[in-house]
């Protein structure tokens, strides 16, 4: 299952590199990074998602920031880098709220809640998880 996804993602990345399309050069490794994150392949997830975040800033594709930050923040948390995860996810949550991006509001809250839980802030984590659940159920 993961191998099939990885093969498709790598094919997509190859096409993006051939046509040198900035948006596709960001989206293809984002998919691969999220796949690595889901599988728990932390080294690859961090490498891919940090590269994606760099492209997001360099190509001024800020619309995607909450999406990328939610994944990168989750990867930081998984690796125990809570101090990196919390400010990133807090900023992403604010941006997602500003544009009323409900899906990313929920994802950022979920990821930030996991980071807070990892940091021992149980009440903050519970509040964020409940907000994420309410957003998900509303949609």
């Amino acid at each position, binding site marked *: *299952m*993961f191998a099939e996804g990885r093969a498709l993602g790598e094919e997509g990345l190859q096409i993006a590199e051939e046509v040198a399309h900035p948006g596709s050069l960001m989206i293809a490794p984002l998919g691969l990074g999220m796949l690595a994150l*889901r*599988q*728990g*392949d*932390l080294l690859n997830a961090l490498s891919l998602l940090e590269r994606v975040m760099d492209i997001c800033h360099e190509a001024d594709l800020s619309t995607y920031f909450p999406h990328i930050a939610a994944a990168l923040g989750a990867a930081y948390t*998984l690796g125990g880098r809570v101090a990196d995860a919390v400010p990133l996810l807090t900023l992403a949550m604010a941006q997602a709220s500003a544009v009323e991006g409900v899906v990313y509001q929920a994802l950022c809250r979920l990821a930030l809640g996991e980071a807070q839980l990892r940091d021992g802030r149980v009440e903050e984590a519970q509040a964020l998880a409940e907000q994420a659940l309410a957003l998900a159920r509303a949609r």
Partner: protein
Amino acid sequence: MSPQRVAARREPPESTQAGEYYHQALALAEELSLRPPVAHCHRGLGRLYAITSQHDQARAALSAAIDHYRTMEMTFRLPEVEAILVQMAVR
């Protein structure tokens, strides 16, 4: 102290609600064939059962999580889950 009071002290106050959330999430993940979340739900349930001293249920849930993780080659969480099983076996 009575056994009931010992159990009450050990059991986190919101463990029932946590269990309900895990079961809801597991049912939804299975319905949608979301295999990684299915594995994570089994892990979460297993941890919860272990904390609340429901050892048989804990072993079943943690074993299910291990099976799913191994099948999908999701090795990151395996040491954590296996460690809980070992701790339970020692007790």
